[in-house]
């Protein structure tokens, strides 16, 4: 049952999401692309680009989009897909909300306690690894082109990647501007 699966998967993604949207990407990709095959690597990459350029948290954006496409792929009509999208988005929210209601007072008092500090001392480095993994998993021939099929596409993709990295990292170009520029480059060159 696609709706139960969406509920289960996105509840899990919600409760194990520490460290913000980028860290969440590896979780979403692992479940949505690798395990359940609700969307392809290309679709996933495209929706990350769309999320970067639309308002709101990236996790909600991904959940809404996945909910919609998964239900459509399962053969249901549009209204069911809209329901699936809303269900997936709410599934991300509800468990953290319950946790928030129950422990926020404790956390305000004890956030510099030894237990909390030592848990986050190892959690934070792992989150860096999670973000790196999200990027590495997307460095695939689906996204960069297969060098044995078209050297041109592959080399150009590497060039775009390097320019985008230097642009955001060193020159602090805004992500939306970067996405627009790279999209324009794709449209003109390919």
């Amino acid at each position, binding site marked *: 049952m696609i709706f139960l699966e969406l509920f289960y998967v996105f509840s899990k993604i919600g409760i*194990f*999401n520490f460290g*913000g949207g980028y860290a969440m990407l*590896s*979780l979403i990709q692992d479940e949505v692309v690798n395990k359940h095959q609700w969307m392809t690597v290309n*679709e996933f990459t*495209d929706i*990350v*680009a*769309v*999320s*970067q350029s*639309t*308002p*709101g*948290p990236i996790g909600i954006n991904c959940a*809404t*989009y996945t909910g*919609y496409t998964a239900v459509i792929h399962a053969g249901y009509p549009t209204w069911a897909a*809209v329901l699936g*999208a809303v269900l997936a*988005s*709410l599934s*991300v*929210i509800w468990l*953290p*909300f319950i946790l*928030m209601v129950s*422990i926020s007072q404790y956390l305000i008092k004890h*956030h510099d306690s*030894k237990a*909390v*500090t*030592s*848990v*986050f*001392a*190892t*959690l934070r*480095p*792992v*989150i*860096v*690894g*999670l973000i*790196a993994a999200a990027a*590495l998993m*997307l*460095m695939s021939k689906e*996204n960069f*082109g297969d060098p044995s099929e078209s050297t041109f596409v592959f080399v150009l*993709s590497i060039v*775009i990647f390097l320019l*985008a990295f230097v642009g955001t990292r060193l020159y602090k170009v805004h992500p939306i501007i*970067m*996405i627009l520029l*790279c*999209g324009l480059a*794709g449209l003109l*060159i390919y």
Partner: protein
Amino acid sequence: MGIYTQIFLTFAKIGSFTIGGGFAMVQMMEKEVVDKKHWLNHEEFMDTLVVAQSTPGLFAIDMASHIGLKLKGVGGGIVGALATALPSIVAILLIAMFFQTFKDNIYVEKIFMGVRPCVVALILAPCFSMAKKAKLNKYNWWIPIVAAVLIWVFGVSPIWCILAAGIGGFVWGRLKN
């Protein structure tokens, strides 16, 4: 205007106008909630940041839930969280419908062929600033590398890495004392 309506409108506005995810929202939230509405003072707002950072879930939604909770209990929290999520849900639904129709369009495909490598760079870039914030040093530099290799090469679920880090950190903290 009732307090629920005010909570709803404030967070729906924050959800509609902040692009680029969680941390971009913090500034706007502070302006709305502390400076304009005087719902929280600066110190209470900092508490909200602490809570949102140390609980799982989406940063912006966590903050909205916590502020709503402080104002009007569980009902206020629910309204805050839903209002923050609503603009995204609507926007992405429209885009998803559009995408289903146009995803095989040759020009859309050309645009995304250029965008995809850029997305990978955009994800990789904050990795380095996060590394600074995570206080990586000669003792813990291997942790992110091991986590990334486990997930990327061995297909280990990121959930196991998070669990291992949480439990490992807790046990290590106990042993150290």
